[in-house]
């Protein structure tokens, strides 16, 4: 569904940051901010909570570790025990390298998967673009139109150095190219 947004557009991160903090102090509820590169400090300004990804990594890693050990022990000591080099069926020291690799494998890929899923990123997704240059050289702060007073906001952001403040109608629905 299409929505009207108020966009404050900046051309450098410092101004953006100031405005973001101002907006937060005024309890203006930000929809999102679009930047060509991660701007540090913006998270606090927007009040974004710490990412949950590390937990995913930990759990996935633990699962990988367990899976690797179980696979190795079960195959070499339970399902088909074979005498190799006079070593015991469960040769733990020899199992460590693979256990480690599988742990990393699970952890890394699960983290990435979680990241993509949570942020609804997938091949062929149509990007929701507020301003054509937001991935290049423009910093865009977006508010849902009906949650802010357009006039006050535009005046305020102009003062804070926004190159322009516009109201734009954008389709927020997930869609393919």
């Amino acid at each position, binding site marked *: 569904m299409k929505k009207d947004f108020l966009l404050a557009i900046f051309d450098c991160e410092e101004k953006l940051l100031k405005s973001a903090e101002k907006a937060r102090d005024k309890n203006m509820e930000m929809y999102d901010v679009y930047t060509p590169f991660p701007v540090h400090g913006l998270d606090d300004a927007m009040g974004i909570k710490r990412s949950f990804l590390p937990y995913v990594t930990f759990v996935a890693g633990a699962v990988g570790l367990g899976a690797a050990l179980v696979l190795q022990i079960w195959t070499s000591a339970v399902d088909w025990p074979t005498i190799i080099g006079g*070593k015991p069926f469960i040769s733990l020291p020899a199992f460590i390298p693979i256990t480690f690799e599988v742990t990393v494998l699970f952890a890394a890929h699960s983290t990435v998967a979680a990241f993509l899923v949570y942020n609804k990123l997938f091949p062929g997704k149509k990007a929701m673009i507020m301003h054509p240059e937001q991935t290049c050289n423009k910093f865009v702060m977006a508010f849902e139109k009906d949650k802010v007073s357009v006039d006050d906001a535009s005046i305020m952001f102009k003062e804070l150095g926004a190159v322009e403040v516009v109201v734009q109608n954008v389709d927020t629905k997930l869609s393919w190219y």
Partner: protein
Amino acid sequence: MSNMENNNCGTSCGCGTQTDGYWQDVENKVIDQKTLSQEFSDTEFDSFSVKKSRRNFLKIMGFSVSALPLTGCIKIPVKKALPYLNKQDNVIPGVANWYASTFENTPVLVKTREGRPIKIEGNDKSMTSFGGANSRAQASVLSLYDSNRLQSPMVEGSNVEWEEFDKKLKEAFLTDTTKKVLVTSSLTSPTTIKLINELKSKLNITHIAYDAISTSAFGKANEKTHGENTASEYNFENANVVVSLGADFLDTFGDSVANTKQYSRRRKAKHALGMNRHIQVESTMTLTGSNADYRYTKSGADQRDILLGVYAAITGYGYVAQSQNKDIITQIVKELKSNVGKSLLISGYNDLNTQVIVNKINNELKNYGSTVFVKQKQAEVLANDNDFANLVNEMNAGKVSSVILVDVNPAYNYFEADKFSEAFKKVKNRVVFTVAETETSKLGNFVGSMNHAYESWSDTMVSSSELSITQPVIQPLFGSRMWTESLMSIAGVSGSFYDYLKSNLSGKLNWNQFLHDGIYTYSNIKEISFKASSTHSYANEIKSVKDGSGMNIITYVKSGIGNGDMANNPFIQELPNPVTKATWDNYAMISPSFAKENSLTLGDLVEVSNGKYTIKLPVIVQPGTHANTVAVALGYGHKVGGKVSKNLGVNAYPFITLNNDFNYSGSFGTVKKVEGRRDIAQTQTHHSMEGRDIVRETTFSDYLKNPKAGNQVKKPKTVHIYPEHDKGGHQWAMAINLSSCTGCSSCIISCSAENNVPVVGRQEVINRREMHWLRIDRYYKGDENQPEVTHMPMLCQHCDNAPCENVCPVMATVQSSDGLNQQVYNRCVGTRYCANNCPYKVRRFNWFNYDHSDEYARLSLNPDVSVRTRGIMEKCSMCVQRIQEGKLTAKRERRALKDGDIKLACQQSCPADDGIVFGDMNDPNSSISKYLADERKYVVLEELNVQPRVNYLTKIRNK
């Protein structure tokens, strides 16, 4: 049909009743006359030239009852297949039948599977060979299947049927009134000789024998000293001291298998009579010399000097030896005199005077009757080199109109081959019986394709008292026939040679027993005593010998290759020479010093010439060769032959000289370095042990003081960081006695034949990719002119903590519960990691798909062992198929496995006495357990703690 034939197996296995069983089979199947006659019409009995009639049928049956294995042949088109529903007892698919036979002078057992001979083993019933077999015998099964064999008889170069061949040959013979000569090699077959003697009168033909590798002087010498032209026999087991002047008695001189058995018994430290002492004086390094306790590198002249010196010291003959030989003479005399009646002096020189002197010395030392014998022979025709030389002259002079050459190839191996060929061409009827086309058969106008030994009937005196059967084990593969039958047909003698043989022997012995055992022993053979009065004249003869100037060009017999008749056998060609480790070629052996002077290195081409004859070939710098000597192996450089032998190496026969007897070291000439190189395919190129603890050795005196001598290396404490697996049940182990092992290498071919190990060819050996599962490492030590040599058989050590197993990603090599290191061919992906990680480097990789496509050669493959494809690893399996067979047999017979039930291929063929011992080390009474308890026992690279199952016993030199 296969099934009916197989029936026959019975009697020759000693179980007579199958005959009836056979009849019933046929009757019950109600085969009408026509089909029946067809059955036996084509291939089955042709070779025995029997008219096909219902009547002869009986006779044939009688015969084929014992001939039976030959009927198992795959080549016979199956006319009438009888289902195995009513199979007979003695051919079980997957179970081998064994038949006693003889190859050359060795009693053998031929293993056949579903009618195909696939493996040769020594006949352990023989009191001569005691179950040993040399490399030629081991390889012979491949010659049987040689696809280069003649396909049919030929008249004037065109293939004909036997009937026509016989007809034409008869005519030619009857019309011929002038001199007819039959030439064979030396014969020891009583029946054959009897036959020939009968035919002589019938055909008024004279018979002479010709050997390319001649020992005629030995017989002649015995004639002088004992009054009987026959070869001496030896008993090395009785000899405390063996002194050999250039006699390679462990490899190419005399009955090497028997010699090795007797000799190796006395190399055992624990033998009741103690260990023997072996002194070898020779000008080139022979296998025998490499085993000697004292070995001296001496020129031919020096050897004569030493012989006379010893002779003088023992008989009081007036002779002053050269100063450089004095010490050696003193040592030899001392040893001989202190062992009167228990010593043995032999010389390898085919020279009458030398041999007479040797006999005299042995007589003076009372060795006759103890270590050396001259005995009455049942029958014997010995070659006389002069006879053949005269024949050549007579042919030249046109005095001979018919010559029958049986399995001899003078056009290749007579020292004046060209002269022979010219002379032979002048003969009207040139009859040649041969297995495969040869230089000589090319010249014949009647060429008879001859059966291989394993397709033939005969008998052989393998010693003065032991008769060994030769019986066919397969239907003639090609359109060939026994030469004896060809002779019979020329002479118009009816019947088959089989009948002749049987009737000739039946009186003397129990025929079926003989067929079964393969051996019959005559009792109380008369021994002939020494008669000669004075022998000084012969000594004077030797004294007067003047050597030519320049390098002494010695032609020698190479183990396996022999006189070259088996040169087309790939097994033989790829067998590393026990001393040089070279394969696929002959070469000029020169001394390190000569090499330095003439800046020659391995593979450089030289021109060897005696003025009359010149050859170009690569050199091998061979430690232990006399500086004035160049040695070239006989048996190479065939101009006619199969794809293996043709134009391989160069022919050295023309270097032989003749003075009454062939002299193999009579040529003198030059060795010149010439342009170019030829790589020599050696399986080992580094010859020093680098002072490493690989072969542990000691001297006999030290051993007597302390049996652990030489084996007291500071042992690393072996620690197991994890619990060991259960070692209950059978636990296989092997022990190799380095004192018994002479390095003869027959185990290598035995192993290859048993396990279908591919032959890879000269270039691949040069690329260091030979496939032998079992190799024999040969190391030199000390002075390069008189080096000490050690031979060490090296095979998969079947480690309990095998490094190869740990590294295989797919578990293609694992440990069996009974202690074998197993290679799982079809699981192997070929990373070669296991081979890299093998400290003994015994694993072999299939770099290509090796050729098994020859439709005949592939018949010799062992069906119990899978043929490996390209890209996978293989190695010694401890003949797991034999272990399995042994276990199953014991199980079927509801009994426990006995020690000795299982014999590995290498172990079985080993001519040495207990050179290789195998068994269950959990069985306290097994011989292996005793070996493992021996103070001399050690394992190679013990410090790696890989826990090998193959153990070695220290080498002891009697110094």
